[in-house]
């Protein structure tokens, strides 16, 4: 069954009705013209929030660890003194660690989004279902 709405509020009413009837959000397909916080709040009452944060956390921690470990490894691998500074000049590594935290955090998040959303979806690239600016709800009934 496919329901199309011009209006967000009627769409939300329909959604609530469907969910209250015991249908899980995972069992229906909702297509929105743009993100909407109200809809998101509504749906998240019936389904867990995005797991993306774990990707971000993992990426960031990896970056941070690498940022300290990698320079330390290189200076111990071939110890060269510059400017009389100690080999393990950790204050200098902070910058590296910071940048890598951000870099790997961001890349992991992006990859995570693609993974969770099952993108890229090659089948839909050239022959997608287009619904314009309407709100659409498709159920299995």
């Amino acid at each position: 069954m496919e329901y199309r709405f011009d209006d967000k509020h009627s769409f939300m009413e329909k959604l609530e009705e469907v969910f209250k009837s015991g249908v899980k959000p995972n069992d229906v397909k909702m297509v929105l013209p743009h993100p909407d916080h109200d809809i998101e709040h509504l749906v998240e009452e019936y389904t867990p929030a995005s797991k993306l944060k774990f990707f971000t956390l993992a990426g960031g921690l990896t970056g941070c660890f690498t940022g300290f470990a990698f320079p330390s490894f290189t200076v111990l691998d071939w110890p060269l003194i510059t400017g009389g500074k100690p080999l393990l000049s950790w204050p200098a590594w902070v910058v590296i660690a910071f940048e890598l935290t951000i870099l790997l955090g961001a890349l992991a998040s992006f990859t995570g989004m693609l993974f969770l959303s099952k993108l890229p979806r090659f089948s839909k690239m050239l022959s997608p279902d287009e619904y314009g600016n309407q709100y659409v709800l498709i159920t299995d009934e």
Partner: protein
Amino acid sequence: MKRRDFLKFVGMASSASILASCGVEKSSEKIIPYLVPPDVEDYIPGEAMYRNTVCTECSAGCGATAKIIEWNPIKLDGQAGHPLNDGALCMRGQASLVRLYHPNRLSNPRIRKGGALEDVSWDEAIKFVRDGLSKANSSGKKSVYLAGQTTGSLSTLLDSFASQSGVERLPAYEAFSHANLRRANSILFNINDIPGYKIDESDYLLSVGADLIETFLNPVSNSQQIYKARKGGHFTWVHVEPAISLTGYKADERKTVKPGGESSLLLFLLNYMVSNGLGKNALSSNLRDGLPSISMGQAASATGLSEDDLNHMAQAFAQAKHPLLIVGGSATSQDGGLSTAVLAGMIQWVSGMIGTTVDFNNAEGMNNVGSLLDIKNLADRLNGNQIGVAFIARTNPLATVPASMKLAESLGNAAMRVVMTDFDSELTEMADVILPLSNGMESWGDVAASTAVTSVMKPVVSKLYDTLSEGDILMKLMGQAEDYGTWLQSQWKDVLGVSDVDALIKKGYADTGYSAGNITMNANAAQSFVSGNKLTGAAAAGGVLYAVPSIRAFDGRSTDIPLTTEIPDPLSTVSYGNYVSVSEAANVGEVNPILKDYPVVSVEGKGASMELPAFVQPHMPENVATIQFHQLDKSMLTMDSNTGELITRVDGASVNATGRTTKLSALAGGFDQQHRQLIPKPGDHHHEGEFEIGQTLYPEIKYETYRWGMHIDLESCTGCEACVAACYIENNIPVTGEDQHLMGREMSWIRIQPYYNEDGTMDSLVMMCQQCGTAPCENVCPVYATYHNDEGLNVMVYNRCVGTRYCHNNCPYKVRRFNYFDWTDEGAWAEPMTRMLNPDVYVRPKGVMEKCTFCLHRIRSGKDFAKDENRDVRDGEIQVACQQACPTNAITFGNLKDKNSEVYKKSQMDKNFKVLELLGTNPAITYSTKANKEEHA
């Protein structure tokens, strides 16, 4: 575009870029080892051999040692132990290696046929000259032979050539012939020569006008002796001069005398001694009475010195046990210079210097040098069409004689002009025959270093071009089949009394000894001179311009060597371009050393005028200006008509601002310390307890065996630039030229920075990489191209450098040099100059940073030798190039870890300081100055 075309383009583009990237490195050559190594005892492939030779850049005759790697001399240094210049060469001597390899050297004989010069063989050229000689003889014209100062066996050979070929040997020509000094000595002591001055045996040196450190007779020897005297303690050196010179700044006291006032000073001193009965030798009563008297007041007004100064000077001079008076340079090459020289001779006699600190047994050997009178005479004879063949060898009088003599015009009247030289000049332009001379290192020869010592030389390199030594040319002209070398060896046996020629060559010189006999002053001649001549002249009125021989070019001869111009003048820091040094009082306009903007002035005198940039020389007396001799318009030169001395003082000269400015390649961006305490002055030191220099959060760096360090004694440093030249040659540093200097792109690794102080003194700060213990440059290099090695050196890995120049920015001493171009491509090493490259040192490509690393290759080689013998490097075993070149041992290098090393001991002295110590860079170079010593006293 088709797919295939696209692939083709991609392929082309990538292979082109690969090829282009290969082109960065020079293509490799195959190296084939010797199957049978040459039969030379000390030859080891790739290792250095050392051969003694003689420096021929000037006629002083310093012993030199050529460092030869794979048959190419790559460095010239002073011969250690040589009686004249023990181990040191001046900046020009160091640079003279370039003369051997210079691409512009004359490479083959040329004769003029139908107006144009053409290349010929030696046989043809010799035949051409001999034909010319016989033609001249048959037409009743006299042929003449004019050469630069000629001593030793060549002089003998020249005499026999002259008598055999009916050629008249003219007195030798030297621009700075010291004619007045020699005339005075011949009047007073019957010796037409200049004595050796034993500065090291004196305790009070009064030098008047003589630029001992720059060019006077033998600056290396002078500097060494001054150093020795200073080390001995009880030595005071007062320099009196009318202008400003490096010598003046390096004396203990510099006194400014009015131009022309020198004779009054000397007369005052003589009177003081005579009237107080001081001195060892009394003057005859006639002479004493004949001396004009001069009161202290008169002397003060004539000399411009204060009565205190005069009094002090006279007393100190009279009280000294071994006083020494050296008069020369600007004091004698002026009107009345002969009187000055005679007065000086009389003082030397009265005070008992003759025979002690003034040594005629070890004289300069200039008795066969003529004066401008001889040139005048020659010109007259030329004008009278009396001259047949004019031989001119090893000298270019056209560049140095007063223009009023019109020598070039006269020379045109000779039937034939035969020029023997090594570079083109205005002289070769008018030559009929050009006979290219071999370099000293390609020749057999001997040179009298003094009347008591003869330096000998044997070729140390095979000839680069089709050239001959002067001796060989003479032999050929005389029709001798024997070559000069063979003749010379027999001569050495006969004349020098040497039985083992090989041993002589190895030693490099022969101590022939010489006795000038018992010298007494000819009182009658002295008296007749005193009564017949005005002893003191009036001080010059108005502006005075002094043409001073330059420490870099001497009389101009060394300008053939690009390196001598590349290295800046130690006072003005000007490298390229002509300029005049004027006083601040001349008010010629603003100088902006950062922009290198200098006012253009017009200098007028003796009816000639020049327009050139002015360097405002701090401390220069009012109305006095100096110009380097070779940059002067020769119209302003005159001759002492009595003695033939070259008068280098231009009276009535005016320096006028033109209102314009121009760029002058003065390398300094500032001439005073601007309160930056680079050389701390008494009272400059940071207050105790404020903070402790050298405090750090970082762990102390441990050095195992070596921590290389250096100590530079600025009190001993004369600022002579010899170290700079040595560094250039040792480390293959390119000569970049005027345009690059104007852009601020000199490449020197070591430099002499003059800082003028308000109290009339000047400090020369020797600046090079400080090998910081905590170097700012190292941290910032992204690729580890520079780092601190385990021997305390701030090493530079050229191959790793990508050229960010961050290290250069972050160096507070600004001693790093960037290769803005590939200097090889830019012609810095035009063939055959590549042969003088030191193979131990990498020639840096473009885009790479470079700097001093304490001659790392020498350290390396020293450690290798030590390793062969299973020991550590001994103190003094490794000498870095600048240290080796320094005539006054101002530079000490060694291992700071070794508590017994000289450098360690010197680095612990109280009077030491480190440059910019407050930055916490912890340099490995410590300096010491006089100023600090006083502070701690």
